């Protein structure tokens, strides 16, 4: 069964550094999402992406964040200048359609900012 994959599984970075989190969505899916979960807190929506552009974003997704689908298979989340409070588990998800369709989640990337 096809799955969403994410790399790396764990990323440690220093405050102020740029990080890129990578995801490979399920191949025939059209909608892509990033969520994050700070330890002990809710899974929070960051951004959704369709047809090579952002279709929705949350207030968390500020100018420090960007997403890209560089090559038709990868879907990346870039944080330009990491802060301590960016430490979280970041989940990528994809779905075939937008409405009423199951979002398939990746295993997550644990980002630790020191």
């Amino acid at each position, binding site marked *: 069964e096809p*799955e*969403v994959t994410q790399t790396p599984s764990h990323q440690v970075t220093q405050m102020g550094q740029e990080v890129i989190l990578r995801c490979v969505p399920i191949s025939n899916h059209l*909608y892509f*999402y990033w*969520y994050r979960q700070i330890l002990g*807190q*809710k*899974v*929070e*929506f960051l951004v*959704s992406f*369709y047809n090579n552009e952002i*279709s*929705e974003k*949350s207030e968390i997704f500020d100018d420090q964040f960007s997403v890209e689908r560089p090559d038709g298979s990868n879907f990346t989340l870039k944080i330009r200048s990491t802060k301590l409070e960016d430490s979280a588990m970041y*989940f990528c998800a994809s779905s075939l359609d*937008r*409405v*009423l369709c*199951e*979002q*398939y*989640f*990746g*295993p*997550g990337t644990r980002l630790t900012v020191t």
Partner: protein
Amino acid sequence: AQRVTQPEKLLSVFKGAPVELKCNYSYSGSPELFWYVQYSRQRLQLLLRHISRESIKGFTADLNKGETSFHLKKPFAQEEDSAMYYCALNGAQGGSEKLVFGKGTKLTVNP
């Protein structure tokens, strides 16, 4: 505003006992509601959605619009049901694509 509340952080039952995981939501339109499950060291996966009105692994959930609830139930819990359960809402009618999650309930089924 869209909000999902799962009042129980932890729930512990014995094998064979009934289990109910509570979920209440706040949304002005007609929501789409889901239960996601995360077994130990596995990814989040969809357990069931209200629109399907199906039973998965013996679990059912009924949308009660009057009480704005979507509680997850199983009549006889099994040890393999031990996991983290998340209730989630999608305001698709409002054009939103995002899932809004509750904080989750950790279910432990004891032998």
